[in-house]
């Protein structure tokens, strides 16, 4: 196999060609030449409109192994590739839960031959019930890249302290959601004027704010490192901004879809807009964008959460929370966040690996290709045909995006979406 990416913009900050256009020759899945001279090749891709970066990594992706009709490792890998992700960190909320060595090894061995590599995040508490710690050291040994209860927020102060302390044995990472559950029970959308006029119980922004305040206090007390996923409020961004200034070891991400909708969009009770945290106000979106720009928000995740029709074609309050997001994450970020391509690469490829302690793939001669090729300016319409996931629960069908993934390379495979 021989493929030439001609005149492509290089977005590897360590490359002498950073931000420049040049030719990249990939042979047998390895980068063999980079430069402005012409290289002979079987296949030439004209990349004058495209940019090339280290392959992207999604830090918050639910693969419902155990409910394989919704999605499995293979279908998620395909959806991820279509969305430009060459690696995924997978949440532990499978059946059974990812909480022992065998489960971690199963994921690793199954993903060995997939284009998109899947890294398991192990459960932080047994059954993700928030009561007792899992065998964290052994799980790490088996290959867990981080610890989290995934879709279930960890709220017990005692347990949070124990886990934060225990993880310090190897500078391990805890990933958590910021939700004060006692304030979100029975709620289905953001609390505000729209929840009032729809007669739906709302989740107030203060529920996220309270959870973050509590987590920051516990982090000050216990030390260690925490990453908060799916931040959604102005208040949350401000708290994390200040915590970072203070020097606390905290990082965070947002779901890419959070930028695309507000609570006003729920007027028609569309269950594909039922997500947690909920779509909030335009003001919150502005704060998330400011947070992305000043690096308060480190990463952007797909928050991929597949559900079958039975879970979504229902009355609003009975429907499941969550939407699929792998195929649309970059497009949503690129369309709504007003970031430079360099910033986007930071959020999608560089920062997730720094936080998880994984090696950042290089665009350099001799390296195995782990790359994402994308066109930041192309306008396109997302349709049902573009969905690779087995589940179709997305509000983005017929949505017009700017920015399209053109190709991915990893694990001695590649795929082009030309």
């Amino acid at each position: 196999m021989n493929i030439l990416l001609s005149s492509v913009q290089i977005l590897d900050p360590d490359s002498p060609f950073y931000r420049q256009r040049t030719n990249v020759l990939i042979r047998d899945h390895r980068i063999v030449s980079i430069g402005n001279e012409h290289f002979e090749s079987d296949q030439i891709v004209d990349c004058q409109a495209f940019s090339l970066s280290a392959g992207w990594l999604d830090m918050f992706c639910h693969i419902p192994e155990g409910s394989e009709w919704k999605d499995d490792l293979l279908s998620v890998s395909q959806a991820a590739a279509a969305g430009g992700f060459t690696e995924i960190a997978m949440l532990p909320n499978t059946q059974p839960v990812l909480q022992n060595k065998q489960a971690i090894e199963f994921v690793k061995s199954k993903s060995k031959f997939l284009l998109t590599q899947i890294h398991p995040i192990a459960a932080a508490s047994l059954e993700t019930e928030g009561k007792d710690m899992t065998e964290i050291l052994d799980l790490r040994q088996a290959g867990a890249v981080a610890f989290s209860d995934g879709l279930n927020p960890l709220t017990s102060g005692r347990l949070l302290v124990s886990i934060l302390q225990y993880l310090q044995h190897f500078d391990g990472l805890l990933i958590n959601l910021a939700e004060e559950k006692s304030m979100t029970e029975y709620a289905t959308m953001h609390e505000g004027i729209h929840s009032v006029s729809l007669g739906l119980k709302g989740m107030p922004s203060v529920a996220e704010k309270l959870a973050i305040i509590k987590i920051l206090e516990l982090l000050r007390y216990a030390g260690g490192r925490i990453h908060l996923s799916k931040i959604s409020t102005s208040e949350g961004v401000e708290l994390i901004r200040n915590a970072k200034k203070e020097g606390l070891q905290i990082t965070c991400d947002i779901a890419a879809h959070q930028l695309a909708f507000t609570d006003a969009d729920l007027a028609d009770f569309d269950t594909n807009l039922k997500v947690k945290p909920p779509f909030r106000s335009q003001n919150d979106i502005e704060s998330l964008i400011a947070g992305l720009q000043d690096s308060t928000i480190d990463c952007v995740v797909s928050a991929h959460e597949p559900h079958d029709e039975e879970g979504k074609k229902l009355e609003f309050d009975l429907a499941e929370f969550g939407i699929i997001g792998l195929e649309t994450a970059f497009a949503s970020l690129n369309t709504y966040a007003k970031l430079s391509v360099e910033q986007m690469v930071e959020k999608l490829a560089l920062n997730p690996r720094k936080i998880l302690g994984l090696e950042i793939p290089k665009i350099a001669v001799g390296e195995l290709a782990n790359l994402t090729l994308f066109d930041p300016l192309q306008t396109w319409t997302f349709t049902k045909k573009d969905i690779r996931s087995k589940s179709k629960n997305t509000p983005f069908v017929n949505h017009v995006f700017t920015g399209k993934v053109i190709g991915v390379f990893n694990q001695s495979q590649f795929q082009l979406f030309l």
Partner: protein
Amino acid sequence: MSQLSVRHLLGIKNLTVQDIELILETADKFKEVLNRPTIKKVPSLRDLTIANVFFENSTRTRLSFELAEKRLSADIINFAASNSSVKKGETLLDTVNNILAMKVDMIVMRHSSPGSPHFLAKHIKANIVNAGDGTHEHPTQALLDAYSIREKHGEIAGKKVVIIGDIAHSRVALSNIFALKKLGAEVAVCGPKTLIPKYIESLGIRVEHDVFKALQWCDVANVLRIQLERQHSRDFPSLREYALYFGVNKSLLDRLDKKITIMHPGPINRGVEITSEIADSEHSIILNQVENGVAVRMAVLYLLAEQTA
């Protein structure tokens, strides 16, 4: 202009002022029919079959709809199921599609989930009348309340109406707010802070927590039932305390320097949100509301049926 702008009555939110006025005017005509000495019936909906699908308990709304349908000569079928028994197996959409397969033209539905009639409207062809969807809307109640205020006071524009009670768990409050605002009334809500949604002022209404002040301000007080069954947690300490501090009673009304109209959508918790003395007094138009309910529902069904034709 003699047609509604909508195919379904999902809520007052989706209606234009003209829609509401058309319904009220049509109800006038049906009220005449109902007050005839004999043959209180018209053949308007002779060819239509209407299913009353009630997933939540209801006595007066269901009877009122049933009577309205009979007075219009429609064929009717009734379906009642508690949500829990439906949850075990069939989905809402399957249940309704099964009913529609028997060639039903119109669905009158009550359901505990906000937005459930909107959900149905996306998936079925029959006309839908929302007979109450959880804590969202109860449009025919708001229409009959508006009709009753108009009947008593001549017009609605400029009138001051206060809705007292459990606003947070009430579909009647929300529909009434939308309807009265569209018709030009000034609206206030009154009750303990825990029973009034935080952002409700953004609907363009006043919020008052002192029942006496609210009564002194208004021309009409619509007293709501305390919805114990719809509260997941107790938002006030006890019914006793509620009755003492937020109930409407004679001594409050005696202290007013004017006469006001008292309404209640029923069923009344006598001695809790309102005392019997007041509910049965000359101030009260509670039974007129019930009577008008049939005429208003006839108007809604009749006008929606025209949309099908």
